């Protein structure tokens, strides 16, 4: 029960954090709804264990909480990779821009 409460509080904090970011226009409307659907889903699964058991049975993992943790871990891994690739792309574009600028200034 305590674990459920802690998880629910954590998720509520995350939802509030997403809302603050949206209010300050740091994230788009699509991301705001996307994150909220995701977090509300987690909140529902945490509060109503039966949902998690159904999902766990569907996925083939024994206990509901295990399935939740496994899914969470996978999501985090995916997000890490996605962010890393995004950063790498941005770094590459930035470097190319700086290099072109250096070569262009020399031509003038």
């Amino acid at each position, binding site marked *: 029960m305590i674990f459920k409460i802690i998880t629910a509080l954590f998720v509520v904090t995350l939802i509030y954090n997403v809302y603050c970011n949206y209010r300050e226009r740091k994230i788009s409307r699509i991301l705001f709804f996307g994150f909220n659907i995701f977090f509300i889903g987690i909140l529902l699964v945490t509060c109503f264990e039966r949902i998690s058991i159904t999902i766990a049975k569907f996925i083939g993992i024994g206990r509901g909480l295990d399935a939740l943790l496994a899914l969470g871990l996978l999501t985090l891994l995916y997000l890490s990779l996605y962010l890393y690739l995004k950063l790498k792309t941005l770094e590459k574009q930035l*470097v190319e821009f*700086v*290099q072109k600028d*250096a*070569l262009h200034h020399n031509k003038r």
Partner: protein
Amino acid sequence: MNTAVIIPCYNEEETIGVVVQELRKFFSAVIVIDDGSLDSSAELATKTGALVLRHKINVGQGAALQTGITYALSQNFTTIATFDADGQHQVSDLLSMIEAIQKTRMDVILGSRFLSSLNNIPLHRRMILKMGVLFTNLTTGLKLTDTHNGLRVFNAQSLKNLKFCEFRMSHASEILEYIAIYHLSYKEHPVTITYASCSSRSTTGLYQDMIRSAHILFQFLVSKVIRT
């Protein structure tokens, strides 16, 4: 021989002037790539006769080398040398390496501090460098004695396909990987490294060296995993 000496430089105002002056005695094309220095490195390099290409922000040594190589290739230099800005390298070594590339007609001549008996390499650095050598030799199939030496001489044609994916320090490993992939002919040449020069960043302790090496290795491995 039409040689361009490329010097990546970041906050090296203490040494860059002397380095360029020494090189200018023998080379007409000394190209300094100022990688967003916050000090007067670029001004000093210009004053002492180098051609300076300026990166507006610091993007890494690999990126600076890439800029220099792109420029040198566009100017049709036949030989391209890379030289450190911190005063660790000797011009006499570079001259003998250029002589070696002319004589042997190799694609690349790589400097090696381990082939020279004159080097007094600190023990911890020797150990870390040797681990790097072991790793590189195992992963590339090359047989080298020093894998992270900034003193290199290339036949310009051999660099035409080089495109760095890592812009920070792990570019040294990328160059060696490039040599292996494109089956470039290479030879190592003994060089002397001055460790006691005014380059403060090159005289760090064991802990910093280990952290830096681990970081370079991590960057290189992650980049390799992502690329493949």
